[in-house]
């Protein structure tokens, strides 16, 4: 569907797209793929976001940040809605977002597994072709599939010995 985008809708979209993720502030919500839609109708801005994980505790902060930032730019009536479907995928992280992760010492996710039928059991640690975001070595070892936030796993570089975080494929 093609609709004429009003200048204010375009501006609201730009403002919303620059709001950063509270837990990974090097990423904007748009880069993370969490920002799904921005619509302006009768001076009401409706922003749609989607949680990365069901229990993502950052949703409230994201909402507040969107509301505050848009208010700072003159949009008084801002509503934030949650879309549960389609479920967020790490594939939605933009190329710019991936570069920002690497620039900040985090490892970006590879392609997400396809979840259609039954998920096969995997008794071995997930194999990922990763490079240490600090020294570039490919000799890395998984220390935990769960990290400081729901979306990350923890790794260690076996060359420079530094630990680093990897954004999980989901």
């Amino acid at each position: 569907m093609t609709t004429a985008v009003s200048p204010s809708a375009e501006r609201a979209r730009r403002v919303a797209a620059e709001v950063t993720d509270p837990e990974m502030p090097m990423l904007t919500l748009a880069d993370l793929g969490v920002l799904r839609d921005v619509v302006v109708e009768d001076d009401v801005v409706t922003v749609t976001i989607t949680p990365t994980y069901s229990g993502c505790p950052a949703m409230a902060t994201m909402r507040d940040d969107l509301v505050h930032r848009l208010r700072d730019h003159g949009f008084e009536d801002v509503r934030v809605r949650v879309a549960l479907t389609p479920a967020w995928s790490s594939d939605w992280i933009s190329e710019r977002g991936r570069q920002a992760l690497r620039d900040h010492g985090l490892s970006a996710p590879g392609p997400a597994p396809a979840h259609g039928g039954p998920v096969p059991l995997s008794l071995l640690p997930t194999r990922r072709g990763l490079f240490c975001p600090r020294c570039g070595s490919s000799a890395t070892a998984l220390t935990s599939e769960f990290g400081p936030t729901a979306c990350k796993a923890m790794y260690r570089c076996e060359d420079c010995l530094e630990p680093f975080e990897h954004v999980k494929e989901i």
Partner: protein
Amino acid sequence: MTDHDSAYDGLLGGDDSQWAFGTDFEDPLAGVDTTIADGVDPAALASYCLMLGDDALVYSHRLSQWASNAPDLEDDIALANIALDLLGQARLLLARAAAADPAVVPVLPEGSPVPPEDALAFFRDDAGFRNVRLVEPEDADFGVTVARLLVFATYRLALLERLRSSDDTVLAAIAAKGVKEVAYHRDYAARWFLTLAQGTEESRRRLLAGLALVWPLLAELFDTHPVEATAAGQGFGVDPAVVADEVDVLLEQVLSVSGVERPDVRPTGPLGRGAGRDGRHTEALGRMLAEMQVVARAHPLGRW
């Protein structure tokens, strides 16, 4: 000044983003189409969502008790993450139950800011909970937790995989997210199961002790409750008996790789009517809820 400079801004700013009882979004399903499909009985949908939601809520609380107590930091964090995923699923499911049939929500004093899913979590007695008994006990040992999490996550993953095609679009959306999360939970438990079984004599002994505690509660999971039968019949739910074989095959895979025999134990009764899905629970649940609910119940009008 950025939004994150002061933690107090969000609390004292006086705008509508203040929150009570944990997280924000008065309605976690805001913006989600909660229309109930034709042929779906709202009361049955609500009861069914309570069952799935209470499994997640109670087990989330139990897993969160490992925070600062797990064998090492990585597992502390892993179990807390799993608990958080389940809490998120519980919140959505309880909110779905409340939206489908508001009559299930406990009535609170006029002016209470408590959202419906929190009223369900904090203001129901144990007899009002619809979870299976598997999730209730407090685990004193990591070996028990590994065995319990393996069984629970395998069962839940099998249900969620099917619920992705639920006729209730909200339930289908919750399941589609949940599958991705619970797949990580199951594999985490399965890998620890193998590690403990093949580790030392002591780690194996404690894992087997855990499995023997958990196994008698397995049968209840697949014992179809009338609400589950209705849910399956109306196309929005899954009859758990249908996933019994699949869960068994998967558990057998883990057991055989680990060189562990299935325990020779009888199911803990009662089964069917009169078990967890009907609100008949072990003593452990009442004690857990007392701790989980005490602050919320003391301040039904509280803003936090």
